[in-house]
């Protein structure tokens, strides 16, 4: 579609612009949501940075895990490729980002920061995180559509892209706009979790609820992805395996929460 635009003579990727817009909007919305828990702007922005660090680190780490053969080749020929060709290959091996890596990294960043900072409760911040993640992801997927990556299967319904020099494999084939479909699903998830947040439903557990809602959606949509190079193991993609893992994890955490916070009526019966 429109992978790049020209700004002051520089070619700027639309994907980067979408990510930046998503981050800014999440920062703004998060500041408003965090007020519910008495978290001031300055404290929120610091924990937002902690989440951002984790997000970027782990998004790249998980991406690199799908490019291990390339990294091995780069190091195998390091003496012949040193310096710029080697750095170029390594840059390409780790330069991409995987959403699930970012999601897990962002959550870890919050957990680690709130462990050391006593200014805010971890569960409160994770609730805000659960609202912001699908909002950010919506913009990320729109960016993917504009850049031409993470594209869909060949289909009668959809768009044909031409002359995409960033992702040439998408060119000249009518494809299902799976990125836009997923962006729409993420937007719906955002509004659902936002409503639950505002009405204090499933307080302290919204991130686990998100892990129950989004992974099955992602698991299904993965079957309509046309970019085969993202890694297939035993018939399922990397993201599908991670989806299964996250659902199991969220069920375990919700059961743990339920056991830890048994209703007062049950507790009274036991003491009688």
């Amino acid at each position: 579609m429109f992978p790049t635009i020209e700004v002051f003579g520089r070619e700027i990727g639309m994907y980067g612009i979408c990510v930046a817009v998503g981050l800014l909007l999440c920062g703004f919305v998060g500041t408003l949501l965090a007020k519910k828990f008495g978290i001031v702007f300055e404290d929120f922005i610091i924990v937002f940075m902690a989440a951002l660090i984790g997000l970027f680190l782990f998004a790249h780490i998980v991406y690199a895990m799908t490019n291990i053969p390339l990294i091995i080749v780069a190091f195998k020929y390091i003496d012949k490729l040193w310096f710029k060709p080697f750095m170029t290959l390594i840059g390409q091996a780790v330069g991409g980002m995987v959403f699930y890596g970012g999601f897990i990294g962002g959550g870890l960043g919050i957990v680690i920061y709130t462990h050391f900072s006593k200014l805010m409760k971890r569960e409160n911040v994770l609730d805000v995180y659960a609202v912001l993640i699908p909002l950010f992801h919506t913009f990320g997927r729109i960016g993917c559509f504009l850049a031409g990556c993470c594209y869909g299967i060949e289909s009668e319904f959809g768009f044909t892209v031409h002359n995409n020099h960033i992702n040439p494999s998408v060119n000249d084939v009518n494809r299902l706009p799976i990125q836009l479909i997923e962006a729409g699903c993420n937007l719906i998830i955002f509004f659902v979790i936002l409503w639950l947040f505002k009405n204090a439903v499933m307080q302290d557990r919204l991130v686990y609820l998100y892990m129950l809602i989004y992974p099955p959606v992602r698991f299904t949509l993965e079957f309509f992805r046309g970019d085969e190079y993202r890694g297939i193991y035993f018939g399922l993609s990397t993201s599908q395996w991670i989806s299964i893992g996250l659902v199991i994890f969220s069920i375990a955490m919700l059961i743990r929460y339920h056991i830890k916070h048994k209703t007062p009526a049950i507790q009274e019966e036991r003491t009688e």
Partner: protein
Amino acid sequence: MQNTKTLAIVGLILGIVTIVASWFWIGCFIAIVTGIVGIILNAKAKKGLQANGEKTAMAVVGLILSIVGLVCGVIMSIVYACTACAAAALTQAASDGTLESALNGLSDELGSELGDALTSALS
């Protein structure tokens, strides 16, 4: 009180560095780091100055510069890193034994310097 002012000054400097660095190759990646650090320092400085009843203008300016610089750094770093598909295609080729042709294909995309290095590597 002195520490808070020092924090604000360092934060402002980081904000300026972030804005400038974000426009350049390598600098844009550095801008992401300095931007995040700048935001944290400026936020802490603003909170401390507010608590002491002092003016927060320096911290606010530093915060704005850091945020803008971080956003620019994110955009520019994704521009430079946005060759993910080539890398992923290479991985597939590396796995199924067509490594030589895959590396030659990459050299076509990246230009003669890497092509020479890869040709030398394969010889």
